[in-house]
């Protein structure tokens, strides 16, 4: 089922690659000149989902799950083997200019900036290609350079910029035409922690200001936790979860993390009476506690241990993902009250 506000509609999407395989060695190399063995690799297998305007969605899965392939299909770079895909009302692989003006795809490891020229030249080129009125382009550049704290870096040749500076300038180039749908593939890869945080703030600000949909893949779970209320999880090209991030965490790892900062050493055996010890260091202990036992455990800890500080959190998303890909499939409807799109169709 699709809704009027959906900007991304994917139904029963399949993508199969034909891959040439040969064993190592000279003999195999010579034989492959005459006989080429190819095999079909299914990258996406029956994926269905919808994304509404203004949503921020994390697209998660292990390496080779089909995330990047799906993003490339959504952005019109790849032709699907079968299934239907619509983005902003367009069929992406037709690559209609009207479609391309509504989207952007940022790939953390690839760049569109002209290497030997300042980013401002790429912006001038993009302005002409996307037919952005000069006043609007100038306003967007002013606004984005201020948000990202880029200053006059856009006048320095790209090759003289650091990775973080380049990524910021890349984002400006990618957003100059004010796209309605942002496909972000590992946008913070290789950046230091503070730069990652800056990028996240920026993506959120853009989403909130322009109401643009954001579809994000990242191996940094902090990106996903900070930005995406909803996640779509795929594995081997199949949807295994589509729904609320917190609900996913609750279902896969319902236990809570109780972090205790201790003012004096405490024996591990004492901590084990309160819950499962995840880490135990000199002045720090992290316990895993079932939600039903949490109140009692907190009270017990406060009354019997030298607690200087205490916090309760969900388990890290990395752990949730590890648990999930250990073979446990989540029922999205049960977890989030929202049917996975494939089921709904």
């Amino acid at each position: 089922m699709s809704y009027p506000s959906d900007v991304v509609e994917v139904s029963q999407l399949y993508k199969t690659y034909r891959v040439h395989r040969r064993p190592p060695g000279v003999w195999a190399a010579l034989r492959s000149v005459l006989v080429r063995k190819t095999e079909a690799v299914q990258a996406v297998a029956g994926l269905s989902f919808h994304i509404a305007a203004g949503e921020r969605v994390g697209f998660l899965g292990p390496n080779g799950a089909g995330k990047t392939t799906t993003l490339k299909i959504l952005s019109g770079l790849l032709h699907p083997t079968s299934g239907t895909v619509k983005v902003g009302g367009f069929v992406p692989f037709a690559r209609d200019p009207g479609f391309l003006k509504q989207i952007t795809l940022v790939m953390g490891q690839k760049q569109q900036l002209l290497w030997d020229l300042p980013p401002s030249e790429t912006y001038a080129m993009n302005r002409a290609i996307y037919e952005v009125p000069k006043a609007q382009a100038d306003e967007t550049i002013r606004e984005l350079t201020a948000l990202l704290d880029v200053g006059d870096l856009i006048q320095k040749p790209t090759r003289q910029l650091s990775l973080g500076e380049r990524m910021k300038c890349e984002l400006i180039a990618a957003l100059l035409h004010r796209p309605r749908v942002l496909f972000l593939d590992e946008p913070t890869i290789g950046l230091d922690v503070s730069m990652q945080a800056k990028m996240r703030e920026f993506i959120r600000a853009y989403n909130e200001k322009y109401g643009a949909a954001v579809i994000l893949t990242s191996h940094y779970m902090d990106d996903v936790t900070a930005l995406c209320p909803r996640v779509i999880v795929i594995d081997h090209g199949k949807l295994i979860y589509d729904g609320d991030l917190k609900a996913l965490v609750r279902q896969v790892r319902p236990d809570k993390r109780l972090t205790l900062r201790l003012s004096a050493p405490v024996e591990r055996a004492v901590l084990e009476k309160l819950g499962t010890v995840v880490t135990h260091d000199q002045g720090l202990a992290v316990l895993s506690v079932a939600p039903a036992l949490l109140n009692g455990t907190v009270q017990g800890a406060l009354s019997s241990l030298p607690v200087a500080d205490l916090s309760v959190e969900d388990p890290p998303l990395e752990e949730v993902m590890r648990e999930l890909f250990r073979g446990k499939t989540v029922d999205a409807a049960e977890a989030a009250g929202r049917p996975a799109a494939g089921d709904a169709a």
Partner: protein
Amino acid sequence: MSVTSLGPPPRGAREGATFRGALGHAARAYPTLLRVGLSEVVAYRAEFIVWILTTNMPFVMLAIWHAVAADGAVGRFGRADFVAYYLGGWAIRLVTSTWLVWELSMEIRGGTLSTRLLRPLHPLFALAAQHMAALPMRVLVVSPVVVAMFVIAGDRLAVRDPRVLAVFLAALVGAWFLIFFTMVFLGSMAFFVESAIGIFELWLGLHAILSGYLVPLELLPRWVARIARLSPFDSMLAFPLETLTGKRDLTAALASLAVQWAYVAVMAFAGLTVWRRGVRRYVAFGG
């Protein structure tokens, strides 16, 4: 949360992907693309000069034929004719050649073609602009050699007749487009085979002989010259060069011009067909 409206659907959404719409879009974008392209060429000036210096085969051939012609003319070619032929050939080649095949092949195999495909301007329009932007620098480099050619062998050049000059200029434009679409065709082979550059090198070998780049066609064995004149290689170099040096009269040049533009149409069709089919197969690995 305040949400700023992103405005009405962009221009392309109303225009659709019609050919006319795409041409209009390209025409509006071209002044900026050419300006940025020229800035790139200037930024890569050292690489550019090195490339020019490596295109020295005509000078080697000129030295050889100049020596041979010391004892008397070779067919219709005296020493001054060889000077006009090889200096003119060098200049025409620099102005009309594009090495798009390297770029396309590398971008297709490396996945970096994705950046071009994501932009709402056909990648071939953008690539054409990028290569056209190199023309002013090339003309600048070629100018002293052209002046030298006029000083040494000006009386051998036929372009004082404005009609011949017009055909020659049209032939230069035709040669540029023919080579560009041939490069699109060869470069797009990288969508299908791993060795598009190998195919290009084969093409380069044929071009050197059949275009008159190494030896004037009329000095080749008759049967080779006949094949060459029927092939598109003639339209790429021999036709404009022989028109410039007066070896092809106005009537023959006009006939060659018609053949040349027919080849442009054929190669444009072939290049775009391979490109379109290739894009469907594009896997964007690594990009």
